[in-house]
């Protein structure tokens, strides 16, 4: 019979989870929709917040680091440099914070009904992607506006760096988020570390200054950070010079492969009966 199923103490096989996942695409869509509708209900500005958040961050950091601190902006206009950095950083931060608390946030749901659990983190990435996309449109508008004001923008193959860098940072956010999510079911401390850790991490990336503006040992650390690599690639899409080093690429490739695999393996181990321990 086609609907036969069977399971034991090992829970679902990974193969089965993915098979089920494809049958539940409407659930994925509904979760993204729920996230969107509920997030902006009863707010005055509504979805406008999606654009305001990176704009304000860019404004403040642009003033402090770009204008007063004179860290430079890697040959890009300051507005473009900071906005591109914060859009991608915001995406990463959202992926990782929401993914890392997914077991706690969905405890009620997980405790009462079964569905392939991996849908939840995929949904988180999905709705973050939609926000990113809207912010990207804003960035495009600013870029076009800048090109009318004499700063030339070349439409070309370098635009391919945009989807590649977004995909990379999504994988990193998902991977690290899943690792933290799985670990927090046992050690809640990690949930506390996340917020504060992200703030610190921000300062070791190229979101707020180009690596070239730092003295050697520090610039090296910032360059090796895989988040910096993603952000620099993203900026190449907007015409920044390509000065990513091979060592940085190797390091991020390593994290890019290891973190999603480790994250998913841990998640799969935890999902089957975390409800007994949380």
């Amino acid at each position, binding site marked *: 019979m086609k609907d036969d199923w*069977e*399971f034991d103490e090992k829970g679902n096989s990974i193969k089965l989870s993915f098979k089920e996942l494809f049958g539940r695409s*409407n659930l994925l869509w509904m979760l993204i929709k729920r996230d969107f*509708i509920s997030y902006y209900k009863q707010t005055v500005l509504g979805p406008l917040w999606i654009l305001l958040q990176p704009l304000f961050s860019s404004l403040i950091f642009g003033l402090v680091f770009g204008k007063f601190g004179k860290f430079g902006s890697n040959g890009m206009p300051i507005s473009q440099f900071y906005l591109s950095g914060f859009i991608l950083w915001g995406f990463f931060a959202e992926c990782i914070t929401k993914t890392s608390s997914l077991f706690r946030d969905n405890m009620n749901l997980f405790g009462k009904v079964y569905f392939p659990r991996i849908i939840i983190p995929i949904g988180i990435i999905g709705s973050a992607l939609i926000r990113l996309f809207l912010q990207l449109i804003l960035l495009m508008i600013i870029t076009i506006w800048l090109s009318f004001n004499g700063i030339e923008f070349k439409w070309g193959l370098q635009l391919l760096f945009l989807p590649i860098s977004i995909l990379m940072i999504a994988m990193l956010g998902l991977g690290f988020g899943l690792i933290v999510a799985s670990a927090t079911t046992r*050690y809640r401390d990690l949930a506390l570390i996340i917020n504060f850790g992200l703030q610190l991490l921000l300062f070791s990336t190229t979101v707020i200054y180009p690596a070239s503006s730092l003295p050697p040992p520090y610039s090296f650390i910032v360059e090796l950070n895989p988040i910096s690599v993603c952000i620099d690639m993203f900026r190449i899409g907007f015409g920044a010079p390509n000065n990513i080093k091979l060592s940085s690429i190797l390091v991020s490739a390593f994290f890019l492969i290891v973190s999603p695999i480790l994250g998913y393996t841990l998640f799969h181990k935890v999902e089957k009966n975390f409800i007994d321990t949380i």
Partner: protein
Amino acid sequence: MKALVAENISKIYRKGSIGSGSLAKELESSIKGIFHKKSNEIIEKHFHKSLDQINFEIEDGDRVGIIGKNGAGKSTLLKIISRITTPTHGKIKGHGRVASLLEVGTGFHPELTGLENIFLNGSIIGMKNSEIKANLDSIISFSGVESYINTPVKRYSSGMYVRLAFSIAAHLQSEILIVDEVLAVGDLEFQKMCLDKMKELSVSEGKTIMFVSHNLNSVSTLCNNSMLLESGKLLQFGKTEEVINTYIQKNSISKPLNERTDIRGNQKIRLTQFRWFNQNEQIIVSGKDTFLELTLFSSLTQTTNVDISVPIDHQEGFRISILNNTLISQSCLVKQGENIITFKISNLPLPMGVYPCTFYLASSGEIFEWIKDAFNLEVFGESYYPNGNSLPKKQGFVYLPFSINSD
């Protein structure tokens, strides 16, 4: 065809806190785990068997009730069948989609409207969009909240909430439906509607149903088969009637009378048996005439002027009332050998619950037997008022017969 087969299912929980919090202790316990093989004693001390080697097979289209006291493992069993958690040992096999309704409105978002929540909840419990659309009218009309369907559910009353939730679940095209006491919410009329709907689903569509409830009345109306769980073990699995009888027998008494050591009195006359019943049934329901049949055995030739008392307590400890023959000036006579005495309570005014009863038997100052909490009166359902309404929660512990006369 078997809809569901459970093979040797056990679920073991660790007692005490999990993940002791400090890394040092975690390390300590994992190192201990490597060097010492867990002895049975340690397992007993640190682990609790919530389910203990459960085996059963459920046929297609069966309606199976699961009964047992709190902590017997009913909910754990349902959680395992609905794949929310995995068994510690054992295997479950089945065919067909499983829909579980362990709670009302799982995943309902308060900010979303009823209609939006139909789509959300429907997809969470496993319906396809096309399925939801095809059944939309039917879902809305069965829930009875048509006029509020575009209102956010946070403004719904709890009754409306449950109706909508149940309505969605009832339209899920699953082969197996699992329900956990959801029906405890909602008014009696709605409960009846749910039971009828579940029965209809099972009969007309061959849906297999597993139903956990403390309300034996609902179980006996809905389920053809039942299983009785007691501290994690499957005690009995068979015809609902028989299983309910076993359950009532086991529950009506905390300890068999002949094993009790705290009986006072000279026991020249003894209580040997007792039975609560109404209209030839053992399921006691408030509002119905209820009988208590006591079997006494006397070693005396004849005793006149016996005083038989059965005080009835509330579970919270206070005395509700007393059944006593002298209270209504009815003299009783006990012959030598076996005697049967029957008390009748008209329209039993007690709501659902367990009521410990004491037994006291004396005659002109001589106490024959005095057994504290000798047996229980367990009320399994309520139909006191003719319209079937129950007392609202926390609005008292006794029904009063009343009527209203305006003008």
